[in-house]
């Protein structure tokens, strides 16, 4: 009754071996398609680098590489020094990180160590809701509602701090609209919190419970357990998540474009208006041409390069932490 040696319809006629069968075309094609899709990632990344660099050559030939570091930005007179924007990008991203990281890490710890699993889900939903708000809505709210409100606070703080050395250095200055480095940094902090939280959570969740139980068994309080057992394991992973948040904050365009103040400036005053690379590209690209446009594209290239590097380093940290957790 066994049909073992029925002629297999797929057998190639005339093949020497009864079990021979050419690998079906469909199978091979599928494999190629999958490979092509995977290669697309690499192709796109390379194309981005190549084509955008090409478009920005007129800027580089005009200003040379020092254009990146020059603070002289005046399109009307053909000066395209990018430093003010690099500065603004760095400052807003830093403010965002300084504000978001403690909150995100605390949230991640809250979700993994403090809150019983049943309550963790709703809290995660709430944090994810932060991520659902599109960047442009943050910007809209920021410029129409938040900035005017926060402008008063800025003035009060600034006047209150006049004369005090370090603090007035940072928090002095005048602001009439509320749009400033700090405002942009604050909104960026809201935006990157969900991603830093969720990545940190993943990292902290890989800490082996044996270590945690060991700490408790020695009579540690929860905070002591976190410091002693969780932190050493998840350190590099959390650093990785922070760097990823940094990368995201640097590249975030629209919210920054609306609330940063749109005036290129290099100043220590966090409460004064400024500009950043993505913001100037978004705001000025439409009307630009020639070398101006090339300069903007060039800043895009710079942004691309910086975020790629930050992401590579960040992924390196995260992988290292994951590998150590597996080996532990």
């Amino acid at each position, binding site marked *: 009754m066994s049909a073992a040696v029925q002629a297999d319809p797929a057998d190639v006629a005339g093949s020497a071996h009864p079990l021979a069968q050419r690998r079906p075309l469909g*199978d091979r094609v599928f494999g190629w398609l*999958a490979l092509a899709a995977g290669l697309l990632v690499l192709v796109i990344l390379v194309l*981005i680098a190549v084509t955008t660099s090409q478009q920005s050559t007129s800027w580089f030939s005009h200003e040379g590489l020092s254009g990146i570091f020059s603070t002289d930005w005046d399109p009307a007179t053909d000066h395209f020094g990018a430093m003010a924007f690099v500065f603004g990008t760095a400052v807003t991203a830093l403010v965002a990180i300084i504000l978001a990281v403690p909150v995100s890490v605390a949230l991640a710890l809250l979700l993994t160590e403090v809150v019983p699993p049943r309550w963790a889900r709703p809290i995660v939903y*709430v944090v994810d809701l932060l991520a659902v708000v599109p960047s442009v809505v943050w910007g*809209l709210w920021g410029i129409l509602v938040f900035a005017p409100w926060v402008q008063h606070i800025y003035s009060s703080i600034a006047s209150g701090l006049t004369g005090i050395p370090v603090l007035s250095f940072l928090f002095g200055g005048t602001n009439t609209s509320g749009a400033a480095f700090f405002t942009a940094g604050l909104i960026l902090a809201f935006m990157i919190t969900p991603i830093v939280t969720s990545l940190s959570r993943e990292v902290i969740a890989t800490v082996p419970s044996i270590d945690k139980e060991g700490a408790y068994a020695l009579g540690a309080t929860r905070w*002591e357990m976190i410091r002693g057992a969780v932190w050493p394991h998840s350190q590099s992973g959390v650093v990785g998540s922070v760097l990823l948040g940094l*990368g995201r904050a640097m590249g975030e365009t629209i919210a920054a474009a609306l609330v940063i103040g749109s005036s290129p400036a290099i100043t220590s005053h966090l409460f004064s208006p400024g500009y950043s690379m*993505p913001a100037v*590209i978004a705001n000025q690209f*439409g009307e630009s041409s020639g070398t101006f446009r090339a300069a903007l594209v060039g800043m895009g290239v710079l942004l691309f390069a910086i975020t790629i590097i930050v992401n590579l380093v960040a992924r390196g940290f995260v992988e290292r932490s994951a590998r150590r957790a597996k080996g532990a």
Partner: protein
Amino acid sequence: MAIAAEQPGVDLREPAGWRRTKNKIATVLMWVAFAAVLVPLGFVLYTVISKGAPIISGQFLTGSIPPNIMPANFGGMAPAIIGTLEITALAAVMAIPLGVLGAVYINEYGGNRVLARVIGFMADVMTGVPSIVMGLFIFTIWVLHFGYSGLAGAFALACLMLPLVIRSSYEMLRLVPDSLREASYALGATKARVTLTVVLPAAIAGIISGALLAVARASGETAPLLFTIFTVEATNSNVFSGATTALPNQIFANASQPYVGAQARGWGAALTLIAIAFIFMIAARVSTARFTRYSR
């Protein structure tokens, strides 16, 4: 059985003073962090809903975009809504199949090969590329040759979505136990068959969920569309050529307008956009729940 009398020197109370306080402070700080997240979220949602809801009406959803100076109850955002839906749908159709196939390559075909690991790693790195760079990229590679169009915007959004879909699909494929693949191979299935008939169906819930989340993210992105669709205020029925508009772009434009009417329409558009993104997010969760129920 007599209960032993409490002996001197046995102290089972909480650890004294400072340690306990530190623990309490830490816990309080963690909850403060949660509050710190709730405040801006509540603030934004409240503002958008309270300012946007009054504007939403049948006219808003179907009317065309009036000049900015017009008062709030004039016109609507229909071209932008249509634009967002069309462009996002087009981007999804491009990015989702390619993303899933890419994840299939990394997880099913790539094995331990260097190429597969490089692709996986670079896909992760690609999720961090700023969206404005994607917009600039499509601008240089497409718009300069073929002009503005919804299609160009879709390309830019697809570039944004691709690594996200790859990443989430990859995680889902990894979760499918090898024993299922073995069972399928043992029945004489080819690799493509195994993948298409056993592995993908087993992972489909998570894949759909990840794809919907990527779509939600893409629908709200402005920067990639700035230089690719050029933001005109009329409906362009041909998504493949000619400038068009989308909700995020309109919001961006209206945000810097001094006119109250324009701002009001901006709020309405913002509420619509959040609603769209929210719907996708809910759909993603429903998908996970429904499909996992089938496989139990």
